[in-house]
């Protein structure tokens, strides 16, 4: 892989840091988070299973304990999202997509807000996704979870550095072609 197909257009990205993030980026970040958190959970259960088999001779399997599995997943997901937001305002998926959760005014969110936002996320799913519509139609692009926690989501990636990286790529490609 030697070439990047498209550039981050400067008009589109530079100066967008701190702007309200839109639905697609947020959906992509959430999908990434679901994948990552499920992957981590599965890996943790597998490790636990191997460890108990090595030291106790028994295997741990959640397939026959559905309620326990649901509770464990719920706790894990709650911890994954609320801890990530409380620590840095972003989950791994959000960090990949260059997003950050801040207070409605733009300040750093608290641990309480992080926990409330996670519960708000559950509420959004309970409303069959209607709670998410605010991201598309509301003037501050806030979903139900944001209203519950008093937060909003903004772009946080350094577009200028991205632009420089793109320019360095094209500049050195040009030099290579020239040679």
């Amino acid at each position, binding site marked *: *892989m030697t070439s*990047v*197909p*498209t*550039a*981050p*257009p*400067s008009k*589109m*990205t*530079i100066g*967008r*840091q*701190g*702007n*309200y*993030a*839109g*639905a*697609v*980026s947020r959906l*992509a970040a959430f999908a990434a988070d679901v994948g990552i958190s499920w992957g981590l959970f599965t890996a943790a259960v597998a490790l636990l299973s191997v460890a108990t088999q090595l030291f106790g001779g028994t295997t741990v399997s959640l397939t026959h304990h559905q309620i326990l599995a649901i509770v464990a997943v719920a706790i894990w997901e709650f911890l994954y999202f609320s801890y990530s937001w409380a620590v840095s305002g972003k989950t791994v998926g959000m960090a*990949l*997509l*260059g997003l950050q959760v*801040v*207070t*409605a*005014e*733009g*300040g750093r969110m608290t641990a309480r807000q992080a926990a409330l936002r996670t519960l708000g996320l559950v509420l959004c799913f309970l409303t069959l996704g209607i709670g998410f519509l605010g991201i*598309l*139609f509301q*003037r*501050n*692009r806030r979903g139900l979870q944001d209203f519950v926690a008093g937060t*909003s989501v*903004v*772009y946080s*990636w350094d*577009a*200028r*550095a*991205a*632009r*420089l*990286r*793109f*320019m*360095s*790529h*094209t*500049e*050195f490609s040009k030099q290579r072609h020239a040679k």
Partner: protein
Amino acid sequence: MSPNPVTARMELMAQQVAERVVALVLDAIDIDALLDRIDVEKLIDRVDVEKVVERVDVERIIERVDVQKIIERVDVNAIIGELDIDALVEQTELGAIIAHSTTGILSEVLDVIRAQGVGLDDFCFRWANRLVGRKVTDWPKGPPLLVEQEAPS
């Protein structure tokens, strides 16, 4: 001036007459017309610039200049404030060279994904609000602490 009072008086009178005459002559001359008749190009051609430059002691002039004083009078912050860093970086290879030392294929891929995300975000937001027939031009771009709010029009 002459020590003899008579000649001194005459000299003074002659000087006053001369001054008066010169003033009258200068008033009578149409300087613009005179300048029009002068072939400036020809005059410049006759000047040996090299010779003039040779006679100028540049070192001495530089020594007399107080650079520190000049620097103190320059408002560097104002100059930096007026600089369009993005345009500067785009026109020079400097930014590219600096960035190349830290760039990696993963970060480039991430940049592309993020940029595409921003584009799709705008597209969806625009169309969603067009569907419900709303104009979103004067809506805030971000939270007040992060984005400078535009004055309502």
